[in-house]
């Protein structure tokens, strides 16, 4: 006769795992991480460019992964390879285009308001890190563009000493930067940016004047509009924002 199954002992509260989990859930409860509602002011096409930036990054990584699977010479030798290289290139162009529109949109919304400074900072750094990510792609192409860009851009890198560890004429090093180190940095920054957006929510509109704001608040107070009740909230009512 076997012994009765016993429940596993409760993890002690000093467990690092428990602490990380509790901190994570506290900072971003599931209904805030993936809300099913948006503040009603999130109703402009400008909001599309944040999610379009993420979508472009996904297409870049997808097409780049196919190119990486087949190796750096494949796209020069086959039509299919050239097709995927073209998709990779155009998705990069789209990525920068939608990201720049997104940044301008966020600037004119002053989207750092309400304690959202870190959201802006992570977004701006993402843009700046994406630039060398693209540059290393250009010098990893193994064609005339790569020859010319690497031999010209080296002087700028050398002038500030960066060339000693970021050698644009070293294909192996640039390829490593392009398909591993810089994409990891971009994805990490985008992830942090999105998590901060989810945590802080989309910045609300400027209040045109206090009276209008007061009227708006009165019009949308519980019973008059649909504001989220304090507790227990339903997912559709507790969202603090939408797209980045």
């Amino acid at each position, binding site marked *: 006769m076997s012994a009765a199954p016993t429940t596993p002992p409760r993890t002690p509260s000093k467990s690092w795992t428990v602490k990380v989990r509790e901190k994570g859930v506290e900072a971003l409860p599931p209904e805030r991480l993936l809300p*099913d*509602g*948006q*503040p*009603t*002011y999130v*109703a*402009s096409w400008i909001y599309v460019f944040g*999610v*379009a930036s*993420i979508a*472009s990054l*996904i*297409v870049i990584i997808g097409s780049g992964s196919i190119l990486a699977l087949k190796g750096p010479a494949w796209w020069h030798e086959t039509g299919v390879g050239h097709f995927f290289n*073209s998709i990779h*290139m*155009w*998705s990069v162009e*789209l990525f*920068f285009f939608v990201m720049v529109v997104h940044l301008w949109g966020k600037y*004119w*919304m*002053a989207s*750092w*308001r309400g304690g959202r*400074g870190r959201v802006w900072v992570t977004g701006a750094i993402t843009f700046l890190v994406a630039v060398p990510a693209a540059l290393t792609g*250009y010098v990893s*192409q*193994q*064609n*005339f563009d*790569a*020859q*010319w860009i690497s*031999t*010209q851009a080296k*002087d700028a890198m*050398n*002038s*500030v*000493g960066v*060339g*000693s*560890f970021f*050698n644009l*004429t*070293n294909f192996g090093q640039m*390829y490593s930067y392009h398909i591993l180190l810089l994409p990891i940095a971009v994805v990490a920054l985008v992830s942090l940016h999105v998590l901060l957006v989810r945590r802080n929510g989309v910045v609300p*509109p*400027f209040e045109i004047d206090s009276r209008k704001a007061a*009227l*708006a608040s009165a*019009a*949308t*107070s519980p019973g008059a509009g*649909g*504001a989220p009740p304090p507790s227990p909230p339903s997912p559709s*009512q507790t*969202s*603090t924002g939408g797209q980045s």
Partner: protein
Amino acid sequence: MSFLRPKDETKPWKGSYAPYDLVKELCIAVGVIALLAVLLTVLFSSPDDKPSTIAQWSHELPADFATTAALELNGTSDIAEYGPPYNHSSASVQHFLLLHPQRWLGVSHPINTAEDYVVKPLETIPNDPALRSAVAEYKAAPEKQKKEWSEAYAKPLVEYSEAVEEKKTPPSAVSVDQSTGAVTVKASGAGPVPAMMTALQSLAQSGGLEGGLVSSSQFFQTDYTKPLLFMADGGLLGERAEQQHLLGDQWGLMNETGSYPGQPWLWLYALWYQVEPMKSSPNADIQVLLIMGLLSTLFICIPFLPIINRIPRKIPIYKLIWKEHYRDLPDV
């Protein structure tokens, strides 16, 4: 601090919410972007101009190749006189005020142009006793003698290149057979150098020099620094680049071959090279990078910059963005 961080009156949203499906939106966005990328691919493809080779260079521009190789041997080419990270020269070392990062980081990719671009590749050529003897004679000579020989050989070639560039009658000491790519230099006092350079030209035209420049103690190679810098010292890459509008004064920094967008996000970086004092400064690169470093820092810090962070409130573009929100506010 209140000057840096003006009072932020933004309050958490207390208004209403509308149903929204973020995951569905992301999936649709990925689909749309992927479709756009495919559409642009079908319409425009992407550029892939074949790389230049040293063999092509030595065939198409034999005098340019010979001149470049002579300057590499002579130690007066751009790379030979560059400075860190390639050698201890100083011609291309830049600084800004007391900042000398190029010198501080030192020589990390050492290149001895005479050894790496001429002598070592020649030593890989087998079964040529005359060449072996010439190389041995060159290597055994004192530095001063080496300099005299290589200068005696390089001088008529440089004069030839200048005459061709200025569309003048080239000196008779140099004759070039464009059909075979053979370059003959009548240089007295050049010792074994003519024999060495003729062999180097033949090695280059056979395609053997590319391999000779990337080989080292490793079997697998991924570092093309030496052959790329050797080619950049010559005229072929620049000639092709000019045809493709890729030179610095053609805003080439952000262009690529063909009629493709290139890297338009570098427009501000490229702009600084077009204006004085950077345009004519020997320290243009470090000046431009420092400017861009400063601007990038300011860009990151926009939320905390006085005036800049108030502009969006003063210029009511936000009323366009949130026009539905403001329209729905009750009239007062």
